[in-house]
């Protein structure tokens, strides 16, 4: 069945103009279709889509807390199994980078290890945006956030590297792990489709621009997310059963653009242009990732 003409995520929600999260949700649900139960970790998405008594969800949807979306989904999976209704329903979890890489990581790891038949999608806006742009483990090196302030004593912003959550999930040896970018829609849709066709735990890491936190014009969302992949900062790949030797890079830029092109239009990286050697460091990290994985793919 093709549900692309149907909308399971209603308009009129309260996301900021230019937010990528609703784009991600809308397209995931168009692929998963009406027989889907959605579980949502606490975060922007939950807040802007369910201001009681309104809801944007035309599918069964549940939110319990911040760190337990994967556990809540595990209970749903078990319940459907117990009543013999497991086969024809998709369970899809949406969590931000906070609810996934940080506070929710334990329950996510547990869900993966126990082998639940669940598709977990992390929409990664690279900071705690719901509480106002505080750093997460998924915030990239060099980014300003409200808890990695930039000043004479701390010229860099975030001094640590981004946690490689998708690689960590692949190390769980679950059937399917991928990175995805809604700016590359055919690839994005194919990955959702593929994930849903596989039984067991699946994890998809999607980049999700936050115009407010990344500090760019709301009209530039897709453009900037596209640059993330074209510069090689956010490569698109998939790994099955944790086999890193068979990583498949699904979008191979003919020539990777320099990282400056991605960093420049975003206010959160503005200070880096006073620290050119730090930009070189970022370029080096990107080149190293590609050197390591490009040949395998």
């Amino acid at each position: 069945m093709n549900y692309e003409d149907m909308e399971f995520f209603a308009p009129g929600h309260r996301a900021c103009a230019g937010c990528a999260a609703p784009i991600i949700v809308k397209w995931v649900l168009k692929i998963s279709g009406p027989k889907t139960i959605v579980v949502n970790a606490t975060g922007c998405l939950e807040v802007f889509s369910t201001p009681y008594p309104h809801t944007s969800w035309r599918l069964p949807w549940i939110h319990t807390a911040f760190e337990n979306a994967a556990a809540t989904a595990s209970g749903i999976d078990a319940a459907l199994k117990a009543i013999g209704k497991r086969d024809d329903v998709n369970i899809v979890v949406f969590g931000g980078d906070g609810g996934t890489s940080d506070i929710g990581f334990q329950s996510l790891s547990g869900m993966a290890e126990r082998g639940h038949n669940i598709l977990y999608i992390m929409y990664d806006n690279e900071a705690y945006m719901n509480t106002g742009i505080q750093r997460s483990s998924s915030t990239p090196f060099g980014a300003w956030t409200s808890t990695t302030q930039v000043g004479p004593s701390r010229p860099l912003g975030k001094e640590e590297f981004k946690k490689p959550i998708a690689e960590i999930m692949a190390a769980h040896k679950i059937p399917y792990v991928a990175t995805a970018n809604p700016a590359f829609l055919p690839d994005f849709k194919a990955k959702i489709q593929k994930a849903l066709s596989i039984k067991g735990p699946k994890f998809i890491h999607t980049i999700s621009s936050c115009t407010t936190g990344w500090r760019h014009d709301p009209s530039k969302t897709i453009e900037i997310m596209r640059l993330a992949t074209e510069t090689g900062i956010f490569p698109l790949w998939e790994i099955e059963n944790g086999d890193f030797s068979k990583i498949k890079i699904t979008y191979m830029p003919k020539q990777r653009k320099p990282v400056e092109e991605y960093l420049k239009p975003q206010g959160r990286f503005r200070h880096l242009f006073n620290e050119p050697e730090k930009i070189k460091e970022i370029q080096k990290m990107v080149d190293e990732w590609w050197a390591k994985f490009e040949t395998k793919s």
Partner: protein
Amino acid sequence: MPMMMLRGNESTAYAAKLARVKVIPAYPITPSTLFPEKISELIANGEMEAEFLPVESEHSALSAAIGAAATGVRAMTATASQGLALMHEVLFIASGMRMPIVMAIGNRALSAPVNIWADQQDTIAERDSGWIQFYAETNQEALDLTLIAFKVAENDKVLLPAMMGMDAFVLTHTMEPVNVPEQQDVDEFLGEKKINYPVLDPEKPATFGAFVFPEHYMDIRYSQFIAMEHARSVIDDVFNEFEKKFGRRYSKVSGFMVDDAEIVFVTMGSMTGTARETVRKLREKGEKVGLVKITVYRPFPKEEIVSLTKNAKVVAVVDRNISPGFAGAIFTETVASYNNEKKRPKIIDFIMGLGGRDVKIENYEQVYNLAKAALRGKFKEINWIDVDEEAVKEVEGTL
């Protein structure tokens, strides 16, 4: 009905089996560990059909139970102490979302210092979480009250989660003869889980756990308060139905030799047995003493407590918990229950048996003697029984 020798944790596991619980997420913690072990064994032996989820934490155990309950199936878990404390956040979510989950608790002390023995601080600390609370005195009660908890929790007028406490080791690990009901009788008593509320069903989409503003939040909290008030009469009705079916009588509060008693003990949980024995002994000596046992702590049975203690001169409340800065919880609530009564006995608090300190007949005799002194007007409001007061006061510099 077969008699079996069961530990408390096995009693609750058999109750789960008899209630045909569909999803059991659990994380082991002393003294509740035998519950998930027994469930795993019953499933492995083909005696029980359920999904057992050996989750990675208590927080996830209760979260998964909510997911299962929201899907419309019966869900149960078990924990104790630190595990219950880790669930704290999720407890309020379970009750706020009106999920009729049942949880067996091995009542155990909270850290620090770490201690694995009997103490009711863990569940008392969660008294405001919106869960119904039952407390068992014996392993028979542990089984019966777990079945009763499902019937109350799932009642349309209630729809609240319920926890059933049993003291660490004294009940959880001690074998007692337990009358295990027949499956058919339990099926008739509980019935198939009726669902008259929305569940996670793609045929009828519904949003659970929405973001609620001040214009609605308080009304939703009020509905929870009303549901807990409804639980008062529903619990009585279910106790009556249970007695009709199984012949065992339960009450939220039960009195023993209270009619002419001048001094009445108030107890909860396994320490009640020792109190009853003390009352018998003292009665043989002609002392006018009685006992009130609390089986349901939430909703707090204020009218029943008053009616059973109002003719006494001194009510000696025994608390296996303490709120530093005030008193034990049962004392506080017993006093509050008398708020609008003209005639009231002296109410005195006795802190006893914390962290598994043995509760002996001589401790109750000491309580009795202090209560008797209060008859003559001499008393302290809060009394710690069987502690080395001098040593502690010296260390704390107050001697």
